[in-house]
């Protein structure tokens, strides 16, 4: 393992970390701007030009608030909760391919921190670990309402994990690989000419049902409206972070935006072709590999940012579910649909003969 390789990977990891933070930071701003737009208000416009410094002002506010720790026998776990939630939110970005390869001075640089061949399972594993941040924090708060909020949040998350995993299986049956880069490369270009009749190569056109199920589950996993029961401020007591204040609360809220960004990235990888875009082979011939790759990175981020916008759009469009409706939808609708989708996909694969 040579030094350049380690340097290259460290650089990619740091860049991805910085970009994730930046996008999550401006998602909080974007959310307020879009909320204002949907409600016909002006929105934040005081701090800096067009209100662009608003996230910094929010950060300063969070840091300078009183850091209150409740009377709990588990002070360490109380601090450990937000830390764990933030870590699990950030760690998933390590397997996401942000772009194809660059050729710099004879070296081929893949724009990805680690291309492991169980990347999809890795993502599912980290998602299932994310529950602990909420449970530990809610329990260590030594408050009944926090504990109930934590149980509410984590039972929602583990219920929707199942449907999420099952909906991915049908995608894996088509892609025949568990590597996220492999899945993206299978969706090469925009039109797939290899079959008997040409069809769009992106999996959203090949697996529309899986896409819908995954989308709903992603909303539930990130605790966004219409599934934001873990923390619906207007109706229930805060949720698992009732006792948190200052930057520890900031970590919980900020990790939610990171989760939004990462899940949008995963959706664009699995269903919208990631860094593929129409006419990429032509661009590669005309402008060379590096230019084509950079446009691909742009396409990837455009899809991801649209995903984040979609989260905000839905938030101000669809009303919140009731808790029993949420559980019924997860267990009695989405899981059977996902299993049906697996059966249909298997039947189609066998009938089409490959």
């Amino acid at each position, binding site marked *: *393992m040579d030094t350049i390789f380690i340097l290259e990977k460290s650089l990619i990891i740091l860049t991805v970390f910085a970009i994730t933070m930046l996008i999550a930071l401006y998602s909080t701003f974007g959310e307020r701007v879009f909320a204002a737009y949907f409600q016909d208000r002006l929105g934040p416009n005081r701090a800096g030009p067009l209100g662009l410094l608003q996230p910094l002002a929010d950060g300063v506010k969070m840091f300078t608030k009183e850091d209150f720790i409740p009377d709990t026998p588990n002070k360490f*776990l109380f601090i450990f909760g937000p830390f764990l939630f933030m870590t699990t939110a950030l760690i998933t970005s390590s397997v996401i391919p942000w772009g194809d390869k660059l050729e710099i001075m004879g070296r081929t640089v893949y724009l990805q921190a680690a291309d*492991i*061949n*169980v990347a999809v*399972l*890795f993502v*599912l*594993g980290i998602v*299932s*670990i994310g*529950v*602990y941040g909420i*449970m*530990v924090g809610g*329990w260590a708060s030594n408050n009944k309402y926090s*504990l109930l909020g*934590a*149980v509410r949040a*984590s*039972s929602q998350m*583990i219920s929707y*994990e199942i449907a999420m995993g099952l909906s991915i299986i049908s995608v894996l049956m088509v892609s025949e690989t*568990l590597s996220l880069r492999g899945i993206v490369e299978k969706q090469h270009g925009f039109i797939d000419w290899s079959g008997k009749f040409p069809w769009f190569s992106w999996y959203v056109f090949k697996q529309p049902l899986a896409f819908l199920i995954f989308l709903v589950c992603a909303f539930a996993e990130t605790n966004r409206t219409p599934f934001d029961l873990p923390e619906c401020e207007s109706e229930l007591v805060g949720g698992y972070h009732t006792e948190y204040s200052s930057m520890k609360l900031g970590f919980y809220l900020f990790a939610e935006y990171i989760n939004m960004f990462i899940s949008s990235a995963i959706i664009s990888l699995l269903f919208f072709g990631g860094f593929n875009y129409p006419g990429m082979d032509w661009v590669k011939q005309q402008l060379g590999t590096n230019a084509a790759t950079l446009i691909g990175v742009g396409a990837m981020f455009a899809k991801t940012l649209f995903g984040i916008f979609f989260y905000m759009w839905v938030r101000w469009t669809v009303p919140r579910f009731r808790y029993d409706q949420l559980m019924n939808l997860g267990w009695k609708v989405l899981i059977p649909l996902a299993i049906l989708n697996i059966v249909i996909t298997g039947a189609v694969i066998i009938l089409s003969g490959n």
Partner: protein
Amino acid sequence: MHNFTLLLFLILSSLAIFCGLMTVFSRNPIHSALFLIGCFFAIAGHYLLLSAQFLAIVHIIVYAGAIMVLFLFTLMLMNLNEETEQHKPALAKIGAVISAGMLMLVLVAVFKRAVLAPPPPYQDFSIGTIETLGKVLLNEFLLPFEFASVLLLTAMIGAVLLAKKQNPNTNQA
């Protein structure tokens, strides 16, 4: 490179042993459960050192991600703490110490006589990948694999039946 692997092995082993001991010695059941999760992660790290990626990830998903979450659920809702813990009689404690010590004796005797298998001459990095595992499971070990899944299905249906409340108004069992 070899030293680096050895260092990782030592770190993971000490972490696993520490978490295992703390699982037993913690007074608070929730701390025990959290240390057990730490232990699972250390063991998953060992699987990675043996280049069994699939096993490592599935170990985390199944044990840390699913089973321990349900454990924590139950523990948190039962609200066990040191005051409610019932005290065992002294005789039971002495009996437990003696039987555990005898188990230790047996284990030590076994391990003293054990012959260490020589390490494999080369390490095949593709042995733990999901492709290899899938081919082996669905060709060579298809029957045991199917039996295991049927067994799991049976256990699941059984658990659902046990958990289902019997409605006294209907005559159906």
